């Protein structure tokens, strides 16, 4: 994992710094009077006058201390800006993972146990549409239908302006109303993918000998499916769930921008627009680390559902 993180920092650093148009250019773009001397001073201030490898080494040392430097835009510490935003993004992602899991697995299992039925065909069509829908477009359409036309749900932010005057339950209801669309839509595409995986994984499992054994000894079909088949079918599904983390984090940029959610994605979008290198670097790396953590969690839960992994370690 450490070489992975190292590689990730190196790539982010190289890509961002080799690109033309630095923050100094952005800052002096508006004032044509800025002299060459002023530009040099600015560069020195940001440490941009040193050779690239020195800048990278400086940055790496600070990275180990979780110090990503200060934002070029407002001078606040990058790490504070990010930690302030991360909880929102993680909450939404975890909620949508839970929703995805709770809906996709039953769909996959049902369509596998009733292969070639009408239900199976309908879900296949749904899966293809789910894969092909631009999610930001779906978000727009849902905003028009539920927010504008029907007026049922708010279309931006994560809480109402008058939230401070509410009691706990009203706040909970308020957050729920704000989160239904973002969570539901980011789950939508993931449901398509995951239900497909659980279907094929289930199809593979129910052809195994031990399932025939379970049926042969007279177990009820529901027990065969839930106790014997499902546990085995879930293993690859759990891995896929872990692998879907980068997509979710990346998708956050569009969702948070559309719904004006103050999360990491929105911060990233704002910092790319203002070429705020330290913040861009910080989010890139933290996003990649979150992805690695997601993969690690997937490995751990894999061990939880698969007894063979545990036995081999003892």
């Amino acid at each position: 994992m450490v070489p992975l993180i190292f590689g990730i920092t190196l790539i982010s650093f190289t890509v961002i710094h080799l690109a033309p148009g630095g923050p100094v250019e952005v800052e002096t773009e508006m004032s044509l009077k800025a002299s060459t001397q002023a530009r040099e001073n600015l560069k020195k201030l940001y440490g941009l006058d040193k050779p690239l490898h020195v800048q990278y080494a400086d940055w790496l040392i600070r990275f180990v201390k979780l110090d990503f430097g200060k934002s070029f835009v407002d001078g606040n510490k990058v790490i504070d800006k990010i930690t302030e935003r991360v909880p929102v993004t993680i909450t939404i992602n975890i909620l949508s993972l839970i929703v995805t899991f709770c809906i996709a697995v039953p769909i996959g299992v049902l369509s596998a146990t009733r292969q070639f039925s009408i239900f199976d065909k309908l879900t296949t069509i749904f899966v293809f549409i789910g894969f092909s829908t631009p999610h930001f477009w779906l978000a727009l359409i849902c905003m028009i239908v539920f927010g504008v036309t029907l007026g049922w749900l708010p279309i931006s932010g994560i809480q109402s302006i008058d939230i401070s005057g509410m009691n706990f339950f009203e706040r909970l209801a308020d957050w729920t109303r704000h989160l239904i669309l973002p969570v539901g839509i980011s789950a939508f595409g993931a449901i398509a993918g995951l239900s497909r995986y659980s279907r094929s994984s289930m199809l593979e499992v129910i052809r195994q000998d031990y399932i025939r054994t379970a049926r042969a000894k007279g177990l009820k079909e529901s027990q065969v499916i839930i106790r014997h088949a499902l546990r085995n079918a879930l293993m690859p599904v759990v891995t896929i769930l872990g692998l879907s983390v980068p997509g979710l984090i990346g998708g956050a940029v569009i969702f948070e921008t559309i719904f004006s959610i103050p999360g990491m994605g929105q911060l990233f979008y704002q910092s790319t627009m203002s070429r705020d290198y330290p913040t861009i670097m910080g989010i890139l790396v933290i996003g990649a680390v979150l992805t690695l953590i997601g993969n690690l969690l997937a490995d751990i839960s894999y061990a939880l559902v698969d007894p063979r992994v545990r036995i081999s370690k003892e």
Partner: protein
Amino acid sequence: MIEIIWDRYKKNHLAIAGLFVILTIATIAVSAPLIAPYNPTAIDVYNVLSAPGTDHLLGTDELGRDVLSRMIWGSRVSLKVGFVAVGIAISIGIIIGALSGFYGGKTDAVLMRFVDIMLAFPTFFLILAVIAIVEPSISTIMIVIGFTSWMDVSRLVRAEILGLKERDFVLAAKAIGASDFRVIFRHILPNALSPVFVSATFGVAGAILVESGLSFLGLGVQPPDPSWGNILTSGKDYITVAWWLSLYPGIAILITVLSYNLVGEGLRDSLDPRLWRSGK
């Protein structure tokens, strides 16, 4: 060979429908100047945000530009982005996968580590960072999407080559003194391409989605040039008054991407020799 594949492919009605839609859209894109009813960038201040009707079949946007014409011209963007981005991704993927699979050892270890790193990146962040820093344009998008989506292809090619490189025909080619380059590109690769074709088809679908997302964020095709994604940006800005700006371009993206996915699925089934004998 091609006849067998086509025979299998045409039994899949959805895949045929997908192919038909793709060809139709390609025709529309090529003949855009002939069939678009209006100039896609012509501003008409008297018809700002007019609803779909007989004059403007799909309505007009906030500058009075005809949405249908902009969508017809926009189809060129998705076609171009899809194919160029995937072309780049496949070229990189094939080269890295081939080197990795053929030489093995340290080359393989280093290259596959690199693939792991690229896969751990939230790719969309990387794309966004690069595009915001380099001038956003259609060529930037194509290149960046290409450079961030080659990893699956390289893994596929590597796996195929690992399976092929010890086969007799490869040993024979080596025995008569063919260069590594020749062995890889003339003898091994042609046998390893069918999963790449399938992956490429899905890749076009993915690239079109990413392009529309980027253009939607204002980081893709720059106005006044039309693209399905940047019409949707106006859709968001005028969400309470002009639903047609949001609805139609999205449907166009959905149908196009769906078609590529259906064709990819059809190709996968018909290119896999293991499925030829079993069942119908």
